[in-house]
């Protein structure tokens, strides 16, 4: 059906016969199935999804890679170690022997199992750290996206649906958050919380915990999602089907559950990949500034920071995580566009 609709010649002044048939077929399908059918026709989105799956799977396999392929501990300094290449022992940290003999340079990419991408300034395997870093970067991005969407959905839906004083209070709270430049807010919160940790009642989050960047990144973007959610709910509240439901005396909670939330859900789903992309970049930025993921943990941001001191001699240490961020963010954005095209009723579904 998908192939027919895309390859059918358009009839001037009307809709192609194939497209009419396709639409007739769609009428009997749920919106989710229709969205999936549209999405899977989007080659760019599918390719992006494949790239994402590869990155996620590779990151999940980091411990296996470190234990069985690179056979190194990516969290332990290895400044005096050596590896064997072509039967010869090669120091991981190599002192300069030319000129005045200044400087010590870590081994570059070997393109072998061990030190595939070379070593960082601590003599650690960059490839293994890249995979471990990916786990943390993706975990933080995913978890903060979830927190952000849940909070934004809650706040946006309540503000839009209940209106009045509830809307006023929640909207002003969002305005307060929105008033801070997002990175300034993230950096301020991180500086305060990362070194000290936080205690909320019986819950204590220690300094250096991954929960801190997750929470900070999750919160700072709430207004950016809650605002459009509130707008969507406001629009839905005045729509004919909701007015009809209210006229029929259906309870408000049921209208919310059956009519409002399913329609808001599509908006939120569209935001998932886009927010994840944004959160990966934010996490990398915070970690690069030493106020995100803390050593001994690694993320793509911390590896970039490690590579900053090796830009001239071993640029791959900074480039590798940079490329990983670019690839992941690009894939998430392309997938996000595809999901939006598939789900957003204001575009393709309408």
């Amino acid at each position: 059906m998908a192939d027919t609709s895309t390859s059918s010649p358009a009839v001037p002044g009307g809709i192609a016969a194939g497209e009419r048939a396709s639409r007739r077929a769609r009428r009997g399908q749920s919106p989710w199935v229709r969205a999936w059918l549209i999405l899977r026709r989007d080659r760019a989105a599918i390719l992006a999804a494949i790239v994402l799956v590869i990155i996620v799977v590779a990151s999940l396999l980091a411990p296996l890679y470190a234990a069985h392929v690179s056979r190194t501990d990516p969290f332990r300094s290895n400044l005096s170690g050596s590896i064997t290449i072509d039967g010869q022992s090669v120091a991981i940290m190599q002192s300069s022997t030319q000129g005045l003999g200044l400087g010590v340079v870590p081994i570059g990419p070997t393109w072998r199992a061990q030190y595939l991408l070379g070593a960082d300034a601590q003599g650690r395997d960059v490839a293994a750290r890249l995979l471990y870093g990916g786990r943390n970067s993706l975990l933080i991005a995913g978890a903060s996206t979830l927190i952000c969407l849940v909070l934004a959905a809650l706040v946006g839906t309540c503000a839009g649906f209940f209106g009045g004083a509830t809307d006023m209070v929640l909207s002003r709270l969002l305005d307060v958050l929105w008033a801070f430049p997002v990175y300034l807010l993230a950096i301020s919160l991180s500086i305060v919380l990362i070194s000290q940790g936080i205690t909320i009642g019986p819950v204590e989050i220690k300094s250096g915990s991954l929960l801190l960047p997750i929470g900070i990144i999750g919160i700072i973007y709430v207004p950016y999602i809650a605002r459009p959610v509130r707008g969507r709910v406001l629009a839905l509240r005045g729509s004919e089907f909701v007015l009809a439901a209210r006229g029929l005396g259906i309870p408000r909670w049921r209208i919310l559950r059956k009519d409002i939330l399913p329609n808001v859900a599509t908006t939120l789903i569209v935001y998932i990949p886009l927010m994840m992309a944004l959160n990966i970049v934010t996490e990398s930025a915070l970690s690069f500034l030493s106020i995100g993921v803390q050593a001994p943990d690694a993320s793509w941001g911390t590896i970039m920071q490690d590579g900053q001191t090796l830009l001239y001699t071993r640029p791959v240490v900074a480039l590798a995580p940079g490329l990983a961020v670019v690839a992941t963010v690009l894939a998430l954005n392309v997938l996000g566009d595809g999901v939006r095209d598939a789900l957003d009723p204001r575009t393709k579904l309408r």
Partner: protein
Amino acid sequence: MTRLRKPIIASTAGCAVLALSLAGQAALAQDRAALMEEHRGGTMILTAVSAAGTLDPMINYTSQFWQIFQLTYDGLLKFKQGDRAEGFVIVPDLAEALPEPEDGGLTYTFQLRDGIRFSNGDVVTASDVVASFQRIFKVNSPTSGSFYNNIVGADLCIAEPATCTLDGGIEGDDEAGTVTFHLMQPDSEFFAKLAVPHASVLPAGTPTEDAGTEAIPGTGAYVIASYDPNSEMVLTRNPEFTEWSVDAQPDGYPDEIVYRFGISQEAAVTAIQNGQIDWMFDPPPTDRLPELGTQYADQIHVNPLAAFWYAPMNTNLAPFDDVRVRQALNYAVDRNALVGLFGGPVLAQPVCQILPPDFPGHVDNCIYTQDPGPQWSAPDMERALALVEESGTAGQEVTIVAEDNATSRAIGTYLQSVLTELGYDAKVTAISPNIQFTYIQNTDNNVQISISQWYMDYPAASNFLNVLLSCASFTPGSDSSVNISGYCNEELDARMHAAMALSITDPDAANAEWALIDTAFMEQAPMVPLFTPKNIDFVSSRVGNFIFSNQFRWVISQSWVQ
């Protein structure tokens, strides 16, 4: 015959040496005059990542600005503006000569040189000297309580700085041009303490508050014409200056010295390569070192420093309140690895003692190495693990506080790795270099272990051991508690006082005692000595006559740019 001829030979040889020496000095003066004529002039451009704070020579305690103060201020005495170890020689500056001690080392009388003027045109008098020493206390100079507390009346000045008179401690006679100091106890380091910038002689009317960004008139070859910590400092020739001692305050070659701030190390290296900047204060980034060492070897100057990088462990906080843990970390740290992090063996030397190599009182003796002996050879992880197991502290949380710069953070990461290997739950926190040094000193911050450096103020063993580890240097709850380990050992304190007293009469015996004290401290391991750094200066191709003093590093004014 032999008895007769010997004095004749000796006196003849003596005359010859004297004649050669005088001839040599005359030749040097002639050479210098010729060089001055050829190279005098031009603008020298220096750079640093950041400025170093106040311009007040009695308050600023940074090597960055102490180097500048050599050109702008003078004391009664000064470290010679000479090459290498000559920089350790104390020479008369505003004083005509080094005085002989009187009253068994309790009194020193200095005769001031005639006709020296401040940059504001006023003649330097004995009253200025007296007022300057009172001002040290009035502005709460960081060394008022450690360097100058031995002057009679200093205890009252420390208690009530605003009304400090140093009554009975210092007398000035404007007519005779003499200044007399009375000390409470003989002090073998008194001359050295007079030769550092905190003892600069300033005009008597100088406000008794931090001068901040306003330069105080001085007597040096240059004056600070303008200073903005966010952009630059400009030094121009002092119009009132005439050279009175080439050793203490030589006339400089450049007409103007511009010191720019806010330029990153990477950018500074490139600017020097391009000839846009003449020198950078900060060391070049480690990833540029191989390039500089091969392509710009002629513009690189590597010189030893009397300094060390170390990791002070808080002896009052777990797990480092257990000496076995402190010893374990000393055994476990691979100093060679740390030397690599600093740029390799050309730029640093592994140490496991507090006194740096070739420093008074240093005797090679490493107890925390695989084969204890004169030198550190390799870490002894087995022994370290055994000590940790014995202490029963494995699993405890340890936080390392490093400076937020590449080298300190790298060392912190390495120590975190070692501590993890020893069984601790270790992490690193990097905080701004602007506050890290004071932060780790304050016991209220509960810092367990940190990374720090110490550069000598003057060449004496006490400047390391007594300053860093005496009970007097430990002030709980204060940002100014330079005994960061919080280690107070009254027995070793008494031995240090005895060594300082001994150094007046028998410096060699005192230095031998300092070596034993160094070892005794290391047995208690309040810190992990890591390595002794070397100084690397990267200058532009137009900079000539580079002179490095072991005391205050590059003698800026003695290099030319044209």
